[in-house]
């Protein structure tokens, strides 16, 4: 009986989406984006679009292999822009009505008067909503896989990791949408409120990135000033030795010999005082930003990690070395250059800060990213099941 009911609901879910047309519109748009993806290319002269080549002496296949070019395109706009934003919004619009339609008066009575538990009914409907999102990502990934194979000359099955990752990302939002649909019984209200929550998560992510970049920038500054202080101390020590060898002593204004090593160094090199003051400022600033960063992380822990979840695909497809190479070529700055004192401008603008940021971001554990997000989703679904199974219709 379970199989019969599940099959019937699957067919019904297909008929429902089919009737909405938007599902097919999204599918068609996916294919158009794949065609655009296939139209892009890179030659020895520069980037190409269809038959046109745009000469560029820095951006061509001598510096970036076609394989890396297509990977970068996929992870720089294919996933974060198309799948994570446009296609997700369209998928939400397509599926937001599933729960409100299920609980609509006149419809729900017929469904729950059948020999099926309410929890199973709800979760089956929810799963089918996710399945249709998965179908869209699968179509897009398959198209991109073929493009990468034919145009980039590389077989990259890792591209299909987009399916579980994007579906996970979508499921965090869909669980919220389902709960709101159950509470409000309105497709429009649940969709709008989900969008608002998504925007808030986006704002928290943006705050996290900004705070983290500022923290990293200060951290690098502390490291640079510490290095400078060490150098100045070394030079001061050399100077002290020279002075002592010449028979002179390190004396204060009253002509008394200075005993304390730090004071002797400062006397030998007065610039040390300024560096120390700057270091103290930088350390204070770093600690403040570190505290704020911890607070933002704490806030993020209870929210679904939408950005980081999508970022997992970047980690999977583009290695750190590939990323570093690309950043260096884009900015002309060696990310291994440790002359951090030259860092200036807005937080995160410097490629060395970006590289450290990437390290920080990629250092966030998959367990934390997915574990806490899945916990959030489980809480949402738990509330849905509780409400759905207890409500009088």
């Amino acid at each position, binding site marked *: 009986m379970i199989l019969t*009911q599940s099959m019937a609901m699957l067919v019904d879910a297909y008929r429902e989406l089919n*009737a909405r047309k938007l599902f097919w519109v999204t599918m068609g748009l996916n294919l158009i984006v794949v065609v655009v993806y296939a139209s892009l290319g890179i030659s020895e002269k520069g980037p190409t679009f269809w038959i046109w080549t745009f000469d560029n002496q820095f951006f061509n296949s001598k510096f970036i292999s076609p394989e890396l070019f297509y990977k970068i395109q996929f992870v720089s706009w294919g996933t974060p822009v198309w799948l994570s934003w446009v296609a997700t919004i369209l998928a939400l619009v397509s599926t937001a009505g599933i729960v409100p339609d299920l609980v609509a008066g006149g419809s729900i*009575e*017929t469904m729950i*008067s059948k*020999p099926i538990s309410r929890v199973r009914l709800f979760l089956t409907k929810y799963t089918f909503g996710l399945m249709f999102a998965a179908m869209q990502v699968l179509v897009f990934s398959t198209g991109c896989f073929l493009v990468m194979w034919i145009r980039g000359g590389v077989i990259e099955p890792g591209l299909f990791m987009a399916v579980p990752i994007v579906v996970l990302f979508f499921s965090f939002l869909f669980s919220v949408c389902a709960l709101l649909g159950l509470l409000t019984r309105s497709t429009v209200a649940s969709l709008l409120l989900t969008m608002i929550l998504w925007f808030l998560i986006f704002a928290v992510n943006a705050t996290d990135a900004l705070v983290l970049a500022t923290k990293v920038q200060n951290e690098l500054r502390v490291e640079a000033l510490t290095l400078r202080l060490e150098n100045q101390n070394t030079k001061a020590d050399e100077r002290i030795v020279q002075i002592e060898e010449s028979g002179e002593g390190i004396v204060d204004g009253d002509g008394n010999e200075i005993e304390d090593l730090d004071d002797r160094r400062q006397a030998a090199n007065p610039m040390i005082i300024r560096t120390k003051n700057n270091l103290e400022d930088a350390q204070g600033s770093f600690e403040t930003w570190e505290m704020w960063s911890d607070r933002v992380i704490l806030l993020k822990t209870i929210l679904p990690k939408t950005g980081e979840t999508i970022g997992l695909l970047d980690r999977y497809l583009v290695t750190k070395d590939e990323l570093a190479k690309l950043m260096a070529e884009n900015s002309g700055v060696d990310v291994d250059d440790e002359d951090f004192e030259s860092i200036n401008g807005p937080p995160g603008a410097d490629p060395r800060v970006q590289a450290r940021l990437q390290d920080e971001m990629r250092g966030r554990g998959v367990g934390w990213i997915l574990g806490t997000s899945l916990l959030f989703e489980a809480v949402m679904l738990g509330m849905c099941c509780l409400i759905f199974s207890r409500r*009088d219709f």
Partner: protein
Amino acid sequence: MSELAIDITNAAKTYKGKIRALRGVDMRVGRGEVFGLLGPNGAGKSTLVKILMTVISPSSCEGTVLGNPVTDKATLSRVGYLPEHHRFPGYLKGWQVLDFYGAMAGVTRKVRKKRVDELLELVGMSDWRKKRIKQYSKGMRQRIGIAQALMNDPELVLLDEPTDGVDPMGRRDIREICQRLRDEGRTVFINSHLLSELEMVCDRVAIMVQGKIARQGTIEELTEGQQHYEIELVGDTGPVSNAILEILPSVGVKQLPRYGSHCGGGRGALLSGEWLEVNLSTLRIGTDDPEKIRPILSALVGSGHTIRTVRAHRPSLEDLFMATMEDSETGETIKPGAIGQGSRHDRRSAGAAEGGVA
């Protein structure tokens, strides 16, 4: 196997906001009968049906449906249900509705294929099988709704307002379907406020008022003692009425009725105890025995009166319903709708129930 399709006691439901939709309903519906539940809007009929179908959880309810506890989900595979104001997805075609809900009831694909054709034929919708529901009229949707309720070949069918929006031909068809189901040994539970419909098809009825069963039984049982004969004479009303009153002592009366006694009070009585009423040119005698009116007819004819009609009158379900809807204390018609917890009427009804009236 239990002889009762539905056997519930103390079914109660209090909604948030202290609205008491059901206030302790006891009900027994035998297998193979057509049972009608009637009552005014807001009486709690749909709430009761929804409790039986697990759509609503009761505040309290003991008993069984088809021998299993009321909340047992598995039992629902043997029950068909047509909800009031049902709404099937507009994108589905007629046959798809039956197929989908049949599958949800656990019917196998092979059986569904066969049942879909049979049931579309039964409800007269075969020609519309490939049309989408959104193109259907209300009556057509109702027919499809009844068909979907029968997809799992149910032992018990609950129909909530099945004739709502259905034309007279459709109503006749639905009645025939109900009778056919009964002939096949199935139990049909109809929830309706269309009294004439129920009267034509139901074996037993229950009248629900403000969350309680006020009366329950066969129509004969419920109308027992309320059947009477009506004798209408030809002539001007005033003289005729007087003439009737004049000849009554000759047939033996315990008490003469007052003119206009049908309006309440002033009823007379025959020596054998049957009541008498006189109004305009009509005489009513409270008996279903023709022998008891024969002396009166003879006396009227013997005194030169012309009799226009003589007919045996059995109260209709509507009469019963209206009588039930009358507050026995105040004589006012009870207002439709559920009542709030702790309301004046609630307290009075509770007292009446304790006294065994309800």
